[in-house]
């Protein structure tokens, strides 16, 4: 839509200006790590952060959310659709790709009005990643090192100022009436081109093959012994799915107050890595081993989501790799499948199955 320049010195004023109108959320430092949290004062905001423990997903799909309240005696029910006008600042490009997938999932088939309400009242201010954030990330390989077009505002750090791409009317509204921004000069354009050109060599490809080959590689790998090897070391803790920006599975529970009639139905994040996730009423578990559950997770990220929604389910943020206590990582898993495929082992195992 348009492109503006905002001096870094104006950022605190802008955040304060936003805070008068919205709940403002962004990366903040907490005990040596970074978390997305509500910004109480502009100096808490750290836009130059490696990555956050949890993705900003938690503001669109809260860890715990009331779906409706009820009175079991009178059968009165009231839907609980919550939203608060929110600006999320400093969203990395990988997390923007993840939100794009979540948007698609929640709009496909039946609309999830709870997600929609959060999403429609959230304005996303993404930030260009100019240097690798952590050892485990592999966004360049997954094609998520550039921002998808769904941003409202997109910031690029130009040293003493930010380049501000306006992507939507919602984004434009964040700048309306804020005067400390100006139209770029030709030098600003040159600077942004230079910054963008210089960023790419700083990132490395970490997959040993092109990501477009991943779905086919996974399709061939159903019977790979690698899944058993991962299953042998996996602790089944579900941490990988808790930190994942594209995971959205949930559990549903009724909670009643002391009257035992009034209460609420809530949903909470759930994990396909937990042993009883796929157990049916008779006790049969369709994914009874950690090997099968690991296979499901990696297939879901690299293949199933692509088939169902046209978007890849892993955005290369590396959070699951960083969180895994036994060092199971998507990069190592995908690369090892590829190595075995090249050696002919994958086809051999497929034939034997």
């Amino acid at each position: 839509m348009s492109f503006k320049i905002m001096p870094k010195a104006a950022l605190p004023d802008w955040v304060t200006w936003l805070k008068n109108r919205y709940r403002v959320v962004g990366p903040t430092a907490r005990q040596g790590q970074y978390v997305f949290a509500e910004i109480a004062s502009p100096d808490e905001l750290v836009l130059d952060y490696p990555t956050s423990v949890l993705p900003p997903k938690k503001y669109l799909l809260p860890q715990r959310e009331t779906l409706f309240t009820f009175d079991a005696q009178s059968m009165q029910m009231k839907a609980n659709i919550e939203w608060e006008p929110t600006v999320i600042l400093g969203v990395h490009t990988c997390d923007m790709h993840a939100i794009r997938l979540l948007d698609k999932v929640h709009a496909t088939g039946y609309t999830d009005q709870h997600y929609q309400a959060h999403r429609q009242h959230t304005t996303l201010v993404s930030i260009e990643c100019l240097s690798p954030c952590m050892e485990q990330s592999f966004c360049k390989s997954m094609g998520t090192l550039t921002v998808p077009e769904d941003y409202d505002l997109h910031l690029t750090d130009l040293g003493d100022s930010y380049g501000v791409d306006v992507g939507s009317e919602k984004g434009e509204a964040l700048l309306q009436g804020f005067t400390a921004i100006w139209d770029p000069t030709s030098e600003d354009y040159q600077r942004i081109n230079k910054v963008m050109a210089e960023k790419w060599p700083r990132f490395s490809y970490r997959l040993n093959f092109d990501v477009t080959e991943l779905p086919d590689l996974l399709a061939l790998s159903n019977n790979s012994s690698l899944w058993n090897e991962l299953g042998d070391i996996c602790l089944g803790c579900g941490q990988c799915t808790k930190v994942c920006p594209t995971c959205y599975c949930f559990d549903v529970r009724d909670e009643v107050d002391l009257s035992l009639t009034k209460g609420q139905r809530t949903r909470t994040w759930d994990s396909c890595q937990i042993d009883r996730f796929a157990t049916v009423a008779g006790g049969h578990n369709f994914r009874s081993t950690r090997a099968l559950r690991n296979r499901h997770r990696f297939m879901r990220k690299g293949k199933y989501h692509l088939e169902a929604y046209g978007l890849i389910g892993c955005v290369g943020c590396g959070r699951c790799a960083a969180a895994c206590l036994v060092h199971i990582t998507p990069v190592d898993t995908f690369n090892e499948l590829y190595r075995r495929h090249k050696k002919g082992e994958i086809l051999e195992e497929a034939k034997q199955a």
Partner: protein
Amino acid sequence: MTTLLKETLKHSSIYMPTPARITAVKDLTALEKLFTIELPSGFSLNHRPGQFVQISVLGVGEAPISISSSPSRSNGSFEVCVRRVGSVTNAMHALKPGAMLGLRGPFGRGFPVERFRGKDILFVPGGLGLAPLRSLINEVLDERGKYGRVIILYGTRSPSEILFRDEIAQWQQRTDIEFHMTVDRADESWTGNVGVVTTLFPKVQIHPRNMVAVVVGPPVMYRFVLMELLGKGIAEGNIWFSFERHMKCGVGKCGHCQMHHIYTCQDGPSFSYAEIKHLEEAL
């Protein structure tokens, strides 16, 4: 779209049920009861055989339950056969006529009944699988002239687990149905066939070219029955299953029922073998 589903979709949350009243409860076995549920006045379920509803006991939770009555016999009310296995189904078993439940749905893709017309139909229900299949069987029997031969091969673990005894007695009387029954383990009351459901296959003539087979039962049964059906030459696209999966939402979001890229709650629970034969987690 069905009227109850329309009501479900009118709610500001897709997860919020519509209240409905239980009008009758009938004991079928020690573990299973048949509930008649009356929809709010003027509503119809307008379901397809093979679809399910999400039933809520507010304060306890919600569970997906197959619809057991046929669309041809659902007039403002419908039936579900519920086995007491978890918290919601246990709570349902404690309810008496007059009690209220919450309903969402019907959800999922039922059996493609139109495609079955003009064909012979082989029904293979195992155990509680008769509950959803009864919906389709009665639909077919109510329009008997539109189908070829109707064969039912029903197996349960023991005589005490036989469901819908009254209806089975009627089916056994009819000359336009070939009905056979077996139990895995007999007791002194049992004089019929003993053995798993596949032991009934030699009792019927199967002409595969014009036959549809519909199989619903416990997961362990599917592979053995499938081998039998494929061995008889029935086309992969004419072998139909209904899958049981854990479902929390019914609308393709919670992830519990996912197999590969498919959500069983939305893309199923009925599938032809041709559709799922490449999915390792299906059978």
